[in-house]
């Protein structure tokens, strides 16, 4: 990769709104080399636990290391796939059930690269980025620490 991409801020406070996603899409309509966008959204499930249903997730992170790791994942994706644009957003703090905590937005001239990069990036995020998630359960202040498998 000859071109280095400027590190971009990934973390946002609280849920990622559909309106934010729409604005991101709209801002790519002037890039007329793009033929395919692949978007991945992670949404908080109301999984049933012993103490009740999950009502939300509180995210924390080792922020500096996480932002650096996101940057490295982006660079690796640009090197590996033919991409025009790549944006990653992840929530910190509380994200209630049904809301979106991860937004991966990949754009390419062709669909093959968009699909492959989208999967690659999501898997890399799950395994490499130091983000921690406390699942809030029921109404009595119970919680459980989540882990990606």
């Amino acid at each position, binding site marked *: 990769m000859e071109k280095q991409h400027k590190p971009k801020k990934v973390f946002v406070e609280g849920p990622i709104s559909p309106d934010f996603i729409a604005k991101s899409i709209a801002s790519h309509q002037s890039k007329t080399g793009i033929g395919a966008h692949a978007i991945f959204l*992670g949404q908080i499930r109301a999984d049933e636990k012993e103490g009740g249903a999950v009502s939300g997730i509180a*995210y*924390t*992170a*080792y922020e*500096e*290391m*996480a932002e*650096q790791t996101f940057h490295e994942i982006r660079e690796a994706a640009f090197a590996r796939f033919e991409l025009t644009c790549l944006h990653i957003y*992840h929530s910190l703090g509380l994200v209630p059930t049904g809301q979106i*905590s*991860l937004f991966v937005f990949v754009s390419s001239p062709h669909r093959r690269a968009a699909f492959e990069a989208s999967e690659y990036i*999501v898997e890399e*995020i*799950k*395994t*490499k*980025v*130091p*983000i*921690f*998630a*406390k699942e809030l359960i029921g109404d009595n202040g119970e919680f459980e*620490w*989540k*882990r*990606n498998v």
Partner: protein
Amino acid sequence: MSLHVLYFGMLAEVTGLAEENWLNNGQLTVGDFRAQVMQKYPALQGKKFKIAVNQRILEDLADIAPQSEVALLPPFAGG
């Protein structure tokens, strides 16, 4: 030597703090540090965690440079 130690997620609950300074006479490997921290906080026994030194996850045999930032990282859960 002196290190700055960070605890994240469930590990911060176990130790009861988010960060602390760590003093030691002489050189430490990651494995040495792991043994020390588990001695200081026996509740860490049985918890799974990785150790990052200056934001890089290192194996137990690696040396820790003086003044490093050392972080205890429980399992990741992003996404």
